[in-house]
């Protein structure tokens, strides 16, 4: 019996411990905001990869050094985990003061609608942010206060990094075969045929994870449509429709590439990382994805890679999918809004730009003039591509931001079309059903 009693005590103790875990932590100190005596700023980010994490650690340490009495409590999570927990945490009185909140309706839009994010409009002037990023960039982090209209209204976040979707190519394979970077889309398609004829996989690609199929399709789409269309479609204004001739043509081009065998063998069964690994190992002349892959391709391989933007149809301007990375936002109920805003300003400072560039990531801010970062490499290619697009105002959008369900619809319908179960016309019609339903219910 004694044994049983002991185990009962152990179990009850465990219960107590469990319940203690779920009770709220000690409340934050009652210091008024602005006072810098022992203030703890809680920051949640998703820069968990080693190189990225070092950048944030450095910036945090320098911020603490410049603000005596302030400590930053950093919690970095994988994006999936962050997305799942941050919405609940931002509603808590002891939630993160600053957190990275994904763009788009399901995340930032829903949080704005629930009144959990602080509008940053007052700080734009105070910190001179209009010199740091363009209005086109700001609109990606903007919503009307009811959270319903995307791309207008108040600013709710600032993004430290930028991304652009383009073509990575294997320099060794290109040189060995005497191929050069194509300058028109027609040249690009001719090159695909030539690479295929040489017995090499033209584009390393896999649709098992789904989302990169959207990038593949939308990269071609961006060459056919106007910047206005992409803006209207993404922000859900001016009665944009998905069921257009241009979108059908883009889908058809993608399908033709698949039929011509331009993608990796068995591409429907290959995941995104697997496809990148094949490319990195030299199995494939090109791959179409975002500039975020550059740091990965610059280490741990004996192959040398370059990057170019998918060229426009002859006589037509180039536009590419791109944007700024996941922004930092401030919890509306934070006790230290001004300090949090200062932190945001530090995250998009020239110093931050320099550190991101050193880590091989394209910063959303321009690099300081005296920057010593080496740009004679793959990183330089991606930086050049971003700067070119920015200058020509040709930064497109991730079309899966358009509605909360369109990501699932696009992935599923693209897989069906590529699998031969539907036609390009069926594809655009099916996506339009999702999109029209959203516009109607909005």
């Amino acid at each position: 019996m004694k044994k049983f009693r002991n185990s009962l005590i152990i179990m009850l103790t465990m219960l107590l411990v469990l319940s203690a875990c779920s009770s709220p932590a000690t409340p934050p100190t009652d210091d008024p905001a602005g006072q810098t005596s022992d203030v703890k700023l809680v920051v949640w980010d998703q820069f968990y990869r080693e190189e990225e994490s070092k950048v944030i650690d450095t910036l945090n340490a320098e911020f603490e050094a410049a603000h005596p009495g302030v400590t930053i409590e950093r919690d970095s999570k994988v994006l999936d985990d962050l997305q799942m927990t941050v919405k609940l945490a931002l509603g808590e009185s002891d939630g993160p003061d600053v957190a990275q909140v994904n763009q788009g309706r399901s995340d930032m839009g829903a949080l704005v609608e629930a009144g959990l994010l602080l509008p940053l409009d007052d700080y734009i002037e105070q910190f001179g942010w209009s010199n740091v990023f363009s209005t086109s960039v700001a609109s990606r982090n903007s919503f009307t206060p009811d959270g319903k209209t995307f791309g207008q209204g108040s600013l709710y976040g600032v993004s430290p990094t930028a991304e652009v979707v383009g073509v990575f190519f294997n320099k060794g394979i290109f040189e060995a075969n005497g191929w050069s970077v194509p300058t028109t889309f027609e040249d690009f398609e001719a090159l695909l045929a030539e690479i295929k004829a040489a017995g090499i996989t033209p584009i390393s690609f896999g649709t098992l994870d789904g989302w990169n199929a959207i990038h593949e399709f939308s990269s071609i789409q961006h060459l056919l449509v106007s910047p206005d269309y992409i803006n209207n479609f993404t922000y859900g204004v001016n009665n944009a429709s998905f069921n257009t001739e241009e979108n059908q043509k883009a889908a058809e081009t993608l399908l033709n590439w698949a039929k011509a065998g331009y993608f990796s063998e068995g591409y429907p069964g290959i995941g995104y990382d697997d496809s990148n690994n094949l490319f990195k190992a030299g199995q494939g002349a090109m791959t179409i994805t975002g500039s975020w892959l550059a740091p990965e391709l610059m280490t741990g391989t004996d192959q040398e890679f370059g990057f170019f933007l998918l060229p426009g149809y002859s006589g037509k301007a180039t536009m590419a999918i791109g944007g700024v990375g996941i922004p930092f936002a401030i919890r509306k109920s934070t006790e230290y809004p001004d300090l949090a805003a200062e932190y945001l300003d530090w995250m998009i400072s020239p110093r931050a730009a320099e550190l991101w560039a050193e880590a091989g990531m394209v910063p959303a801010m321009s690099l300081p003039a005296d920057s010593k970062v080496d740009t004679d490499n793959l990183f330089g290619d991606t930086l050049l591509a971003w700067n070119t697009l920015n200058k020509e105002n040709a930064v497109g959008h991730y079309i899966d931001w358009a509605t909360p369900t369109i990501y699932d619809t696009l992935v599923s319908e693209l897989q069906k079309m590529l699998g031969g179960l539907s036609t390009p016309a069926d594809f655009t019609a099916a996506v339009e059903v999702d999109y029209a339903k959203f516009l109607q219910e909005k």
Partner: protein
Amino acid sequence: MKTANHRYPGESKFKGWLYLLPAFLIYFFFTFIPILETFRSSFYDWNGFSAERTFIGIQNYVDLFSDPLFLKAISNNLVFIIFYSIIPILIGLFLSAILTGTDLPGFSFFRTVFFLPQVISMVVVGVLWRWMFNPVSGPINQVLSLVGLDSWRQAWLGSFEFALPAVGSIGSWVQYGFCMVLFLAGIQRIPTEQYEAAELDGANALNRFIYITVPGLRAEIGVAMITTMISALRVFDLIYATTKGGPGETTLVTGFLIYRSAILNNRIGYGATIATVLTVIILLLSFLIRRFMGNSEEAST
């Protein structure tokens, strides 16, 4: 049953219940309350984090039964029952029948190996098989090429024809060891006299299996049926780690649809509705199996 009421002098009846308390408290707070909360949420339109939630009655249920995705997911779950329950039970019966009574060297080693998939986390299993099925570097396609069956090479997990059977067979691989161990234990309990008598009467091995082993294992088959079927209906992690429901909706299952609706699309109310319906379906099927298998406890004594 006689000894159940026996108590030491002075020992209260109440004390017995006390031993159940810790488990009950954990169950009550971490399982029962969330179930009730899920049921309540299914009558609301709620995104999961804003302060206000709108009561909409049974609208979620109305929407659910006209949602083609839900019907597709449920029908995929039913296919999964074949792979999770029926095939593993058949393999388990076969293996336990041929393993019983033989003095195979390393018997316990093989028993452990066959059971091993059951104790590996499903996500690990998923990652492992994703590699196995990889069209370029995976061993399955490579072996096919090696034996000259190049035309059989497939984009397994990305193929509209093969994705569902491919993911399903992972389930069979995970479950059959569990069934086998359950049946091996059960066979020990069947009196050997029955086999000897049957053998004297001229029954061959197959007949002995059909007329003695299978009926003798009725209780175990019932247990295996219920546990594997529940796994088949609530499968989520395996799909998440392999196909994410694709290609198209080929491998979309109810568990994944709940995650997609509640977490990705901010529709907690609708996700809760699917979860509630799934719970009812699982309860109903478990009840039916128990009825068909008879009262398992009595059959086993």
